[in-house]
């Protein structure tokens, strides 16, 4: 009896040994590949220009990668495409989610079904269909660089649907749409003005988390970009991985760092946002 009473108390303070074992196993599985990648990226030798000696470990692989115009170019292209994707996704989904909530609630199942479809359609299938439609005439957009980037952005916006729509819709559920809209309209605002000056600012937190998630997905995307033949980061890193030894390790670490930065931004925004909206109280 006494054992039964004291056991939970002791467990609360130190944690059960089983929990520690599982936790440590899990953490090592997650951490070891990261350490191995860092270690691998430092294996490249740096040749001292004066003595001609080879020094290991060194940051030579990072130097090579960051001096490689194709690597930096791919990174910048991916970043640019990610920003355009986020802008298009927001401009498309915020008014749509707003309109569904305010005016056509009966359309919700249709819109939700479409925004969830990317979970069922793998990227490789989506790009298969896109290439079959947009490569041959009459809609041969994929013949030009601009057209290819446009179709790529379109595909990425579709990939962002599930995350972005949910983020926007959750954000909309925390504010009193009808009152805000009517207040703005009674002051003479038209629809574009209501969306731009009232709805967007109120959704800032929700939109930012959706945006950063999209950024993380687009920056590393490989499948769609590689089949469309665009020179973004994912395909170039893959090419490096097939031809070079240490540079791809450095490239992976840089890519992890970008993803991490984006995701931590989401967490921090999420926290700041929670603190701000809670006192106001949900309806």
């Amino acid at each position: 009896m006494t054992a039964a009473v004291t056991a939970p108390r002791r467990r609360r303070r130190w944690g059960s040994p089983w929990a520690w074992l599982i936790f440590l196993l899990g953490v090592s599985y997650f951490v070891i590949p990261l350490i191995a990648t860092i270690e691998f990226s430092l294996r490249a030798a740096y040749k001292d220009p004066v003595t001609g000696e080879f020094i290991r470990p060194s940051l030579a692989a990072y130097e090579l990668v960051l001096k490689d115009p194709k690597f930096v170019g791919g990174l910048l292209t991916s970043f640019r495409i990610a920003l355009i994707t986020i802008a298009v996704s927001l401009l498309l989904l915020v008014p749509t989610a707003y309109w569904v909530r305010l005016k056509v609630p009966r359309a919700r199942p249709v819109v939700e079904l479409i925004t969830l479809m990317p979970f069922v359609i793998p990227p490789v299938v989506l790009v298969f269909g896109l290439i079959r439609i947009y490569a041959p005439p009459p809609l041969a957009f994929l013949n030009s660089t601009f057209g290819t980037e446009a179709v790529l952005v379109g595909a990425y916006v579709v990939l962002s649907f599930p995350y972005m729509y949910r983020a926007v819709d959750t954000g909309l559920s925390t504010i009193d749409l009808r009152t805000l809209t009517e207040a703005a309209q009674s002051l003479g605002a038209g629809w574009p003005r209501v969306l731009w000056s009232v709805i967007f600012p109120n959704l800032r937190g929700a939109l930012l988390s959706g945006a950063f998630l999209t950024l993380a997905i687009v920056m590393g995307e490989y499948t769609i970009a590689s089949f469309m033949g665009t020179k973004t980061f994912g395909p170039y890193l893959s090419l490096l991985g097939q031809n070079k030894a240490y540079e791809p390790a450095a490239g992976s670490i840089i890519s992890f760092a970008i993803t991490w930065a984006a995701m931590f931004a989401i967490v921090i925004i999420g926290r700041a946002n929670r603190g701000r909206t809670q006192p106001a109280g949900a309806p």
Partner: protein
Amino acid sequence: MTAGSATSEAPGIRPAPRRVPLAWLGLLPFLLFSAGFLLLPIAFLVIGSFQTSTGEPTLENYSGLGDPYIVAAFWNSVTVSLISAVGGGIGGFLLAAAVVRGGLPRPLRTGLLTFSGVASNFAGVPLALAFVFTIGNNGLITLILKDVFGVSLKATGFTIYSQLGIALVYLYFQLPLMLLIVAPAIEGLRREWREAAENMGATGRQYWRHIAFPILLPTLLGTTILLFGNAFGAQATAFQLTGGTIPLVPVVIGAQIRGDVLRNQGLGYAMAMGMVLVMGVMILVYVWLRRRSERWLRS
């Protein structure tokens, strides 16, 4: 199509029938965009899968799925997805139980959950490369095993470029996804249930075996199915890892996009449809199981 059906029902329900079709017009940009970049491409594949190369209607493409090479691809995909889903499901559940109920210091738990949010989106080229650097031919662990313990990983028969190897890599995004979905479910287990069980003399093990586990079961099964679909659709990781030496469905479809490797366009479409079908069934079962589990966990 949807707009039309709304107009026909609307007058009976809405006081201002004329405004309804106008309101649906507000969805036009979204619907057009979805049509251009999602619905039409998929419709093209659906229609193509029922046509011969000259455009005659046929079911031949689907019977072509019985080709041994394609059956092998589906079989490989199912094996890899199943191993990584079951492994990720069990491992993720244990991890979630450990951090939520194991009494670990709070910062560790917050840290792991934050990390999981990031890692559940790690897929593709960098992930595959990271594992090559870890247990590939010159990977850190491979070298440590060889130099320090005198064990050759190759001699054990394990390689990262195998089905088991791919599944091991997939665990990197499967475990966190499971953890993220199951941790809140374990948190949702009411304290009163545990107290009630303890009052009647149940041990901790009995409580988990007869109360907590059955309540969590639909969530666990549902999420495992979600993991299966997650692995089934992954192309970049597998392709980077194996370069196509192990035919998986997404890799074969990828090869078909680059050139007519199946010597039959329609067969490629049918394969894509087979993949969508598998994913669709998985998601439906997931949604169904999720509804069942919400019955208990709604607070």
